[in-house]
């Protein structure tokens, strides 16, 4: 059940048998959450770390005008709040998009695993780093790309993120998002999202069928949106052999 998590962490760090074992016992409480349901709201004290095992969720804020801004989409294997559990209260909401299977991990368990499993700890750092890198890329998207490129960019990103955790095949992946969800994360109107999706369909780049999205020509869609996968730091886009953190290696050896 934790396959998505293990796959994701292993795309950052090689994990031992003991690490796998520790991750398997990490998920004591799994629950099913319906679509469009808050896992935690702004202002609430976060008790547990939420891990998405199945389904899609998002990080969002509601503006005084009632406008929603989505800051992140969360897919299987994503921690909703790996670090925010240190906070006294949430500064944003986390809610499901589709029905989700969610693990509530007590903060004590995270403390324990980070104290005893340096490779997992390092993989957790990678998760946090990539979350930030995705957020940076979304900023670039909103500030620097045209509406149709923004959406195409998001579609490429979702494909790669879902491929990494085994939730995409033949360039097809579940797409439970409404046009309003895309609009609220891209700073666009639903009308513009609707037009762009139509345009991408008409160009033969994508098909949307039964809540599944297929990208027909990934390279073309990447070129169209100026997509470079480097910020996702996936195994095949990195230089893991050359990468090292000397002080951490020393700390582990001591």
């Amino acid at each position, binding site marked *: 059940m934790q396959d998505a998590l293990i796959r994701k962490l292993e795309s950052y760090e090689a994990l031992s048998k003991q690490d796998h074992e520790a991750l398997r016992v990490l998920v004591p409480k799994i629950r099913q959450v319906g679509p469009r349901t808050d896992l935690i709201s702004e202002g609430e004290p976060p008790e547990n770390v939420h891990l998405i095992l199945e389904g899609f969720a998002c990080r969002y804020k509601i503006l005084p005008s009632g406008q929603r801004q989505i800051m992140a989409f969360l897919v299987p294997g994503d921690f909703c709040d790996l670090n925010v559990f240190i906070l006294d209260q949430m500064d944003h909401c986390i809610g499901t998009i589709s029905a989700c299977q969610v693990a509530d991990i007590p903060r004590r368990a995270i403390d324990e695993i980070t104290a005893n499993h340096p490779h997992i700890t390092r993989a957790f750092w990678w998760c946090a780093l990539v979350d930030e890198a995705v957020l940076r890329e979304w900023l670039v998207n909103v500030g620097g790309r045209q509406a149709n490129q923004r959406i195409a960019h998001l579609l490429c990103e979702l494909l790669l993120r879902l491929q990494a955790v085994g939730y995409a095949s033949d360039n097809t992946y579940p797409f439970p998002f409404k046009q309003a969800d895309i609009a609220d994360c891209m700073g*666009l*109107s*639903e009308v513009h999202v*609707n*037009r762009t999706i139509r345009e991408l369909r008409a160009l033969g780049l994508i098909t949307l069928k039964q809540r599944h999205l297929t990208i027909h020509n990934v390279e073309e869609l990447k070129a169209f949106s100026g997509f470079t996968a480097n910020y996702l730091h996936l195994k095949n886009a990195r230089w893991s052999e050359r990468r090292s953190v000397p002080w951490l290696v020393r700390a582990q050896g001591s």
Partner: protein
Amino acid sequence: MAGPHNVETLVVLQPIAVDTDSSDCKGMLVLANGMLVAVLVQLNHSEEKQKGRWFIEAGFGRLRDLRQRPFDTLDDATRWLRQQMKPNVVNRQS
């Protein structure tokens, strides 16, 4: 109550074709007291439920960057726009 803030803004609509890179091309220039404040476009190629509605394709001045849901009719759009053009309107989104 009479007062300077209760003077109605004169909103005039002028038909115009708009290139939206889609088949939504029937539009209206919205002039408020003689100044261009917005361009409305009638949705034609959208989802069924949106078809025929009027969308603020572009706004200028205080209407800039507003994300407003499409209006059912041109009258609804005009009423809302007139409301926004009142000098004392602060919260511009409804």
